[in-house]
């Protein structure tokens, strides 16, 4: 599922500290609600990836790659 453009993904990939901005974007797009945003902020990247896979926003393969390569892989998986 595309949540952002490739251009946005590139901007995220260049960020020094991306986590809060990514969660805010996912909330704005209605992928996660306020409560989920709060939980994911506390619990970190692995839980975020698991949540996105569970919601079928990313595939199992994307999820595995994200855990191996980090957020750059994730944001490009979220891009159209």
């Amino acid at each position: 599922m595309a949540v952002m453009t490739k251009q946005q993904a590139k901007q995220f990939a260049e960020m020094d500290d991306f986590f809060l901005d990514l969660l805010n974007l996912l909330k704005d797009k209605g992928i996660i609600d306020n409560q989920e945003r709060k939980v994911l902020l506390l619990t970190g990247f692995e839980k975020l990836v698991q949540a996105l896979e569970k919601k079928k926003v990313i595939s199992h393969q994307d999820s595995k790659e994200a855990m191996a390569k980090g957020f750059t892989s994730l944001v490009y998986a979220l891009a159209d």
Partner: protein
Amino acid sequence: MYGWAGQRLRIDLSKGDIIKEPLSLEYRRKWIGGRGFNSDIIYNEVSPDMDPFDPKARVCFGVGPLNGTAAPSTGRVTVTCKSPLTGGFGDSSMGGHWGAEVKYAGYDQIIVQGRAKKPVYIWIDDDKVEIRDAANIWGKFPRDADTMIKQELKDEDIHIMLIGPAGENLVRFACTFNDVWRAAGRTGHGAVIGSKNLKGIATRGSGSVKIARPKEFFEICNRLRQAFKNDPMKMGLYEYGSLCLINIANRDGWLPWKNLQYGGTPLANNMSGETHAKTVLKHREGCYACPICCGRFTSIKDGRWAGEEFGGPEYEHAVPTGPRVGIIEDANDIWHNARLTNDLGMDGIETGGVISVAMEWYQRGLITAKDTGGLELEWGDEKVVDQLIQDIAYRRGFGDILAEGGDRASDKLGLGDKGHYYTITTRGMTLPGDDPRGLGFGYGLSFAVGTRGGCDHLRSLCCLELSGALYPGLNTKILGDERPAKPVTTVGKPYMVYYEENQKTVTDCLNVCCFTTHWCYTVLTQDQLDYFNACTGMDMSIEEFLEVGERVYNLERAYWARQMSGAREDVVPERFTKEPMPQHVDYQTNVGATLPINEMLPKYYKYRDYEPGTGFPSERKLKQLGLDYVAEDIRPLRKRYMSESEQKKKKYYY
């Protein structure tokens, strides 16, 4: 009741009252224990304008639901008070075995208030609690008082918390010990205890900790202990103690030399863990239930200090009265100084810190021998350091001024802002032996915002940047990015500090040793949650668990807000932002580095949901955490903090 004992002990030394207060499930769920219980009491019962030495002030000793169990490293105790050093919120943690004993005696927390008419000690023998005369142990070193109490009570197996002469003399950074040598070093609670005429608390506990799901709990503990056998950080800590960091610190330029003018010295190896192990190590020591055993016992064999023995030292204990004051040639001098601060009952970090500050004032001509009572404060002069440590503890001569801490001493000597530049403090407490220009920018950020007086590595202990390289993939798993594993970068540090602070706080509420879950990353948050739930029978989710950490942290931050300490005080010593790191060895990795604190602070505030102008926790965040009463307390203070008059004030301590 599983995990917890279910009650706290409140002792009023003025009235001689001994009260046992039950702790409801709701309370335990909200605060968990240890630092959580303590922070709640201090916030509610020690007002911002109270003198820390006022008899009405409290000092709390908190243990947690895991203390005394088979989970890794469950002996710790958190000690909390209003700090006489900073004037703000202060706590410290000690290992040893006393924490488990307090739990076995049937208490989750001990609160001491009031002031005894003459020196006393408290004797807790399970449910029997007595206040006993301490006339013959007042003035004694902890190791002597420990022996004497055990003889008096006819039991060598009891465990005792004690202060030394420095606490009795109200040295603002006096500390406490248990089991003679295990110290809770920072923020000066030893002086608060001394101000109450309390020498210590002896404890015998014959109870047990009941476990809700014993088979499951055993399996988790067993799995973690097997994993520890191959943990890379554990192996270094076991072999060489926390002194295993000396050569790394020297290489990466964070070993304080001459009050952090430099990040190391060519002779650093003289005091490394490897050298210590070959020359003076008598035993490795472990706290209760610990699979790491980073403790040392030192025996000096030759030179002028031959025959001296003591438990320790840690890296943070040895460095301040070693390289920070310019001593490195004869490591026995460093071990001796560490032994001395232990026996006298003073925070090694603050003691070495304040002496090194005075030495730099002397170096730069801000003070002369006239101010120091004739002492010539030359770098590396062991005779001077040895004398000053004792003069501070007994408040003699120039030592009496230094016993006030660096910033108060600077004011007493009339040195103005220039004096404060060299005290290397934030909110009145000095930096530990870690220069953030090399240790890491995450640590640097943590120093600025830490809730026990800043300049404090143990608020976040963000070892994802210190030992991250030993755990490939760990930074990605938690932060989503492996780049923050590099210490000297701002990449990912705001989130790293936010995450690690919450995680460290809930670890302190459980009261297990943070070395199992920071530094060594064998125990991760999910593991802690698993053993917590199996032990207590609770069904907490991981977010509720971490939220406890966030709640306690915000409560402490609000404590500072009540003292008008917020965004303007989230600073690091200017040395780190203005002075590029000079070179001390040719293999040094951080030459030229400064700490870009302002690049990280705004993002960190967003993670914390602090108000940008004041740096106070937002109302929204406080309400989310169930701290509505705290939101009400600080609502009227937000405007006041931003007022012109408040903005003009320079606050070095409170």
